[in-house]
């Protein structure tokens, strides 16, 4: 038997103190298999040891929350006995090493998290962050990630309906791939992972176990250096064909009453699924590894327990139901094997070739896993108002902004995703939120992902809160009632006090906004150690939000619909240029404070806009975010192919008015009579409102002087991405 040396402990990503703790919990030294099990279960990725103490502070309850964090995904009640199940998860480290497979298996993993709870996935979103456009790796990564997401999602027949993409040099060595899956189930048919009771058969379903992905979770819990390419073998290989069969087979089995508990084998594979199921069920579990379906010969217990082969599930069945279940999986030509039994010993036991190879108290892998109160420092906020050239022509800047890396059209990406399969997509990519109908009803779900990492860098608390507020605003802008969020917290190394400070502040900000907006967190994921050679990413607390439209026919979209509509701005504009797209793209500066958030005003303005949409008073709405008022007006004009004529800036200084990124604002376009009503009602409610102009023509005209044609704006806006990917020019970056 291999002797456990300090080197082996270190190679498993465990500290000497953690190793001592393992010995104390076992009352002896672990063997190599057990050390492997501890290393994955205690990895940052599985144990949340750096963030757990802080995540506890997030609000997770509301009358409509059926299942909060702790299960495979969150569940909310959407009325009529329907439930929506959703979660967002990162696959950052693998996607950087092997973009196609990393992204594909990220999509596969999050789908399993959702369908293991009994839901049919109905929509996918993804939030992507890449390095500078002209970084030598960027095109390769964009191309691989997008085809990986498409390759998996398209085959699954689940529409990919939107997402977001940013480019920034801080992601040069650590891209972010966050995928969100939304599914539908009946509220009384939700499947959980608690393996309650002893003597029940534990069954393995799906594809065979191979040697791929061993220690993926450990890899995902460490920084990169110049040797990261060597970690390629830890990336899993996806097979969406098998996953599609697994989805259908699982839903078929779930229509029976044979299942006690079920969980997908994701990070840390068989080990984490079995240990977590036993832990949640308050039981024990005994696995006989000889029965695990194997793709390769002579696999060791260590390899089988730690493999992250994809498209596998573990279920606990009611005794005697094995044959019924097996028949279903054979029909779908999937592997099915009884590999163990639940026990009342509260121990995780694995046997191989007749010998016990691991015997660990279940709680040592869960409750007893380390939780760290890592030291953290709060950074000083940069508060000075940045200087800018007041003479720059406004429309020239607008054109530059619409063709900039973070603002250009993402059509090149989303045309590679099937966004209309299932024939329920009501709002396709390009709007404020995607809208997907609940089939056979007039209800629809609105879905969005948001975060503005440059705000989070300037002020992590505001950045966390703003991500939540923007998600809430995007859902509101289509007319949905925001219901709940999933968070995907992407940060650098938590062992650095300044990074830990970002994490703590961002979580506090998320919590504050979620409480103020009645928008609880129901699921989430943390991805830390996004650093290469000591350089961390911008703090990126991505938020995935879900809302409900009770009557989808009332939905609003961003596109101008008629000429002669009045364009109305809702919310106060002070002209906050700090950390704005304008400052970065036109002035070449990443400076200033993040725009302040007033959550009470945010709620008041949003509730007003939503009520206008619900009452049929507004069908054309756009939330304001990156690029400010003028970028949003231009986007509405381009989407509807109707021009607009706008007057002078409301504040004395035009540039901050047109491009400032003040929060809590919306644009509405409505026919004159409706617009008058809207303005009167807003004034009654003390909501700041301003009329900016009229729709019509084929250009954006400012103050009857400056003009830019839609044709010209469209060419800039649509042209950037295809040109980047064709390698036609090196785009200008700062």
């Amino acid at each position, binding site marked *: 038997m291999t002797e456990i040396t300090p080197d082996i402990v270190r190679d498993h990503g465990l500290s000497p103190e953690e190793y001592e703790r393992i010995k104390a919990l076992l009352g002896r030294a672990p063997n190599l298999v057990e050390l492997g099990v501890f290393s994955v279960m205690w990895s940052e990725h599985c144990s949340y040891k750096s963030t757990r103490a802080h995540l506890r502070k997030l609000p997770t309850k509301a009358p409509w929350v059926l299942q909060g964090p702790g299960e495979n995904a969150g569940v909310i009640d959407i009325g009529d006995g329907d439930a929506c199940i959703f979660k967002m998860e990162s696959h950052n480290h693998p996607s950087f090493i092997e973009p196609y497979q990393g992204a594909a298996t990220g999509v596969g993993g999050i789908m399993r998290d959702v369908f293991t709870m009994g839901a049919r996935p109905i929509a996918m979103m993804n939030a992507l962050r890449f390095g500078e456009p002209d970084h030598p790796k960027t095109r390769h990564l964009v191309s691989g990630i997008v085809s990986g997401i498409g390759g998996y999602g398209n085959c699954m027949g689940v529409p990919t309906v939107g997402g977001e993409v940013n480019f920034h040099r801080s992601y040069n060595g650590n891209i972010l791939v966050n995928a969100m899956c939304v599914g539908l189930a009946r509220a009384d048919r939700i499947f959980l992972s608690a393996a309650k009771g002893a003597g029940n058969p534990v069954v393995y379903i799906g594809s065979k176990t191979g040697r791929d992905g061993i220690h993926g979770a450990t890899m995902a819990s460490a920084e990169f250096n110049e040797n990261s390419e060597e970690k390629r073998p830890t990336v899993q290989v996806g097979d*969406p064909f098998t996953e599609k069969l697994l989805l259908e087979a699982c839903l078929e089995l779930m229509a029976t009453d044979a299942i006690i508990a079920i969980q997908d084998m994701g990070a840390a594979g068989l080990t984490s699924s079995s240990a977590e199921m036993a832990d949640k069920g308050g039981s024990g579990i005994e696995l006989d590894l000889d029965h695990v379906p194997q793709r390769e010969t002579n696999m060791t217990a260590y390899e089988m327990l730690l493999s992250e082969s994809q498209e596998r599930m573990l279920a606990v069945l009611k005794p005697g139901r094995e044959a019924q279940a097996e028949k279903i999986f054979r029909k779908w030509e999937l592997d099915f094997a009884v590999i163990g039994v639940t026990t009342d010993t509260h121990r995780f036991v694995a046997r191989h070739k007749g010998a016990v190879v691991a015997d660990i108290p279940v709680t040592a892998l869960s409750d007893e896993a380390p939780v760290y109160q890592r030291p953290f420092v709060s950074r000083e906020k940069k508060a000075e108002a940045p200087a800018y050239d007041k003479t720059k022509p406004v429309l020239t800047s607008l054109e530059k902004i619409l063709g900039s890396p973070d603002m250009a059209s993402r059509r090149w990406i989303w045309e*590679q995703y099937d966004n*209309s399969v299932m024939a329920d997509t009501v709002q396709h990519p390009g709007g404020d939120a995607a809208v997907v109908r609940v089939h056979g009803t007039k209800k629809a779900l609105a879905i969005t992902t948001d975060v503005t990492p440059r705000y989070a860098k300037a002020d992590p608390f505001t950045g966390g809160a703003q991500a939540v507020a923007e998600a809430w605003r995007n859902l509101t802008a289509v007319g949905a009632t925001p219901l709940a969020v999933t968070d995907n917290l992407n940060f650098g190394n938590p062992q650095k006090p300044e990074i830990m400070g970002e994490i703590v502040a961002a979580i506090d900000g998320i919590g504050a906004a979620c409480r103020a907006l009645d928008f609880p967190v129901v699921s989430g994921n943390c991805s830390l150690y996004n650093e290469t050679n000591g350089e961390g990413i911008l703090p990126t607390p991505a938020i995935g939000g879900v809302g409900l439209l009770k009557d989808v026919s009332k939905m609003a979209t961003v596109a101008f619909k008629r000429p002669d509509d009045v364009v109305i701005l809702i919310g106060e504009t002070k002209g906050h240029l700090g950390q704005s797209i304008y400052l970065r793209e036109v002035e070449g500066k990443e400076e200033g404070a993040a725009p302040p958030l007033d959550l009470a005003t945010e709620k008041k303005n949003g509730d007003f806009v939503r009520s206008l949409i619900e009452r049929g008073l507004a069908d054309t709405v756009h939330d304001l975010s990156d690029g400010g008022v003028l970028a949003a007006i231009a986007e509405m004009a381009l989407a509807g192919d109707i021009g607009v004529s706008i007057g002078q800036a409301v504040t004395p200084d035009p540039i901050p008015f047109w491009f400032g990124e003040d929060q809590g604002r919306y644009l509405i376009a409505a026919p004159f009579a409706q617009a008058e009503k809207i303005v009167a009602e807003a004034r009654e409610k003390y909501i700041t409102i301003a009329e900016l102009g009229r729709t019509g023509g084929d250009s954006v005209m400012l103050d009857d002087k400056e003009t830019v044609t839609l044709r010209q704006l469209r060419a800039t806006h649509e042209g950037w991405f295809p040109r980047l990917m064709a390698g036609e020019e090196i785009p200008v970056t700062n």
Partner: protein
Amino acid sequence: MKSAVIVFPASNCDRDAKNALDAMTGKAPAMVWHQESELPDVDLVVLPGGFSYGDYLRTGAMAAQSPIMRAVKTHAEKGGAVLGICNGFQVLTESGLLPGALMRNAGLKFVCRNVAMTVQETQSAFTRKYDSGQTVTFPVAHGEGNYYADEETLDRLEGEGRVMFRYQDNPNGSARGIAGILNDKRNVLGLMPHPERMVDPLTGGTDGRAMFESLIETLS
């Protein structure tokens, strides 16, 4: 009109086809598993879109060998209507029910967008409710929709009025912009764009309805 939808492993538009048939005919189609060797008594068989057998080997190649395809061929030989959409079109060319082949898109990327097409022929059970020359918009969503056949076959298809739909802005490099073709007996249609996603104004449009209405009028 009685209909059936064939379900191959990893078909993924089978439910969409079912929903469209349900909505248009008021009758649920029979969902037939690929391992079956017989079809129920139906007027129309739909081979749905998807990634049958994960597109392994070649798109549609393995599904074309499924037990149910023998019954589909017999159904077609007897004059029964067969509609192959997207992957279903690929299965039809692979099984020899339609000429030609569908290759990788010229742009080498999966493409999902709404495409405008011209209805070339209205003399068929699938298109009689359209106007000749009418422009219709359906979504495409495929990586391998680049229709290929030799010049002689293409000339024959054109000459016999079997090119049913032609792209106005070719999204995939198809020969002569062909989006959908008919067999020589005019009872088997294969097309890459998705009419079944175009039966509801809320989800994109209703240009697909006339295809189902044509079938209902002909086959009922």
